[in-house]
C-alpha cells in the first residue's frame, strides 16, 4: 500500500503539470526554502528570514493574520449573500427574512458573515493594541502604522455600511445617528463648527453626500450597498496589499 503510494508520488512528481506548479522540490535546505518562498504567491507575503522571537505566538497572537482570515471569510460569504439580496427598500428586509427561513444554509452564510464582521472589528483593534504595546509601529515601520490606521477606518465604515442593508429598525436608526454625526462634523457638516460659515446646508453637506438625499431612504440604501459590496472592499484589499508588502520589506519586529 505504502509502496504503491510512493510509486504514484514518484510518477506525479515527474509530470509537467506538477513541475510547472511546484518548481523547487521539497524545501529541505535553506536555499530551497528561500526559493520556495520567493516563487509562491502566498508564501512570499512572509519575509524569507525572520528572527526566532518574532514568530513567538505570545508576541503576535496571530492577530493580523486572523484579521485577514476574517476579511477573506467576509468576502466569500458576502458574495454568496449577494445572490439573494436586492437593495430595494420594498424587498431588502424580506430578502433577509428569506435568507433566514426559506433558503437552504442561508442563515448559516448570513451568520458567518455577521459574526466574521464583528470578529474582524474586534481583531483589528486587538492587532493595533498589540502593535502599540510591542512598539512595532516605530521606525522603519511607521508608514505601515499609517496604512493600518486607514485599514481600521475602512473596516469600521464597511461594518457601518453593512449595518444598513437588512433595512430593519436597528439599521435605520443606526444610520440615522451616523448621518447626524456626519452632519455635525466640523467644516463639512451643515450643523458642525464652521459648517454654516463655509456655506454648508442640508443640501450640500457630508450627510447629504453619504445618503444621496436628506433622509435614510432608497438612495441611501443603494449608496451603502455599492460602498459595502464594491468600493470599500476594493479599497481595503488595495491597502491590505500595501500593508503586507511593507511587512515583507520591513521585516517583523522582534520582542522588546
Amino acid at each position, binding site marked *: 500500500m505504502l509502496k504503491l503510494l510512493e510509486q504514484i508520488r514518484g510518477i506525479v512528481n515527474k509530470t509537467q503539470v506538477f513541475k510547472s506548479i511546484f518548481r523547487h522540490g521539497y524545501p529541505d535546505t535553506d536555499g530551497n526554502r528561500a526559493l520556495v518562498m520567493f516563487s509562491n504567491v502566498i508564501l512570499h507575503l512572509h519575509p524569507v528570514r525572520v528572527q526566532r522571537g518574532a514568530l513567538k505566538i505570545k508576541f503576535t497572537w496571530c492577530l493580523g493574520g486572523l484579521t485577514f482570515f476574517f476579511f477573506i471569510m467576509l468576502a466569500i460569504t458576502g458574495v*454568496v449573500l449577494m445572490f439573494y439580496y436586492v437593495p430595494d427598500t420594498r424587498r431588502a428586509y424580506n430578502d433577509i427574512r428569506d435568507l433566514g427561513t*426559506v433558503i*437552504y*444554509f442561508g442563515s448559516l*452564510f448570513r451568520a458567518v458573515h455577521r459574526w466574521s464582521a464583528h470578529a474582524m472589528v474586534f481583531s483589528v483593534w486587538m492587532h493595533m493594541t498589540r502593535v502599540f504595546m510591542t512598539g512595532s509601529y516605530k521606525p522603519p515601520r511607521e508608514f505601515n502604522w499609517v496604512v493600518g490606521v486607514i485599514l481600521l477606518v475602512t473596516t469600521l465604515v464597511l461594518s457601518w455600511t453593512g449595518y444598513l442593508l437588512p433595512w430593519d429598525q436597528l439599521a435605520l436608526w443606526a444610520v440615522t445617528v451616523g448621518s447626524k454625526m456626519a452632519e455635525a462634523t466640523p467644516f463639512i457638516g451643515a450643523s458642525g463648527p464652521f459648517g454654516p460659515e463655509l456655506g454648508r446646508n442640508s443640501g450640500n453637506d457630508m450627510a447629504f453626500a453619504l445618503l444621496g438625499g436628506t433622509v435614510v431612504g432608497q438612495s441611501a440604501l443603494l449608496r451603502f450597498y455599492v460602498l459595502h459590496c464594491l468600493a470599500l472592499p476594493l479599497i481595503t484589499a488595495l491597502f491590505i496589499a500595501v500593508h503586507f508588502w511593507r511587512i515583507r520589506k520591513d521585516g517583523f519586529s522582534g520582542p522588546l
Partner: protein
Amino acid sequence: MADNKGNIEDPDVSRRRFFTLMGLGVGWGSIVTALGGAGLGAARYMIPSVLYEPPTVFKIGKPENYGIGVDTKLKKERQIWVVRNERGIYVMVAICRHLGCTPNFFQDQSLFRCPCHGSIYDTHGNVVGGPAPRTLWRAAISLDPVDGEIVVSFNTRQDPDPVGTPEGLMVEEAGREVEPYFLKV
C-alpha cells in the same frame, strides 16, 4: 510469520512514519471534509426553494368572453394567445420555436410573424415560413368546476412532430384538438 510473536516492529513502517502518516491523513481529511461540506452547502444554497415568478397555472376568464379568432389581449401579461374556432378554444404559447422571441399577430394576414428572425406561423401554429423548426406550443387548459373559468397550465404543453410539406411544417389539426389542449365550448 510464526516466530514474530511479540514483535510489533514492522520493518516497512516505523512508528514515527506511522504517526506522521496518520497525522497527515487526519489533518487533510478534516480539511477536505470541511471544504467539501461547505461546498455542498453552497451548492444547495444556490437552488432556491421559493420562487418569485408569475404563476404557471392561472385563470383567464370564462369561455364566452372569447369570440371567433385570435385574442391577443393576454400576450403581454401571460404570454399566450387564446384562439376560438368553430369547434372550440385552444391556447397557444407566445414563444417562437426558433430562439424564443415573442411573435406578433397580424389580423389582416391571419399570421404570426416573429420580429427577430422572420419565422411565420398560421393561426393553428403551423410554420409557414422562416427558420422555426417546430410548430407553436399549445398550453393545457381546463374549466374550473366552481366558477367555470378557463384554467391555463402554462408549462404543460402540446408539441407534436410536424410533417414537412410544400407549405411548411404542418400538423394534422384533428390530432391537436384533444384533451387537455382543447375545450369544446
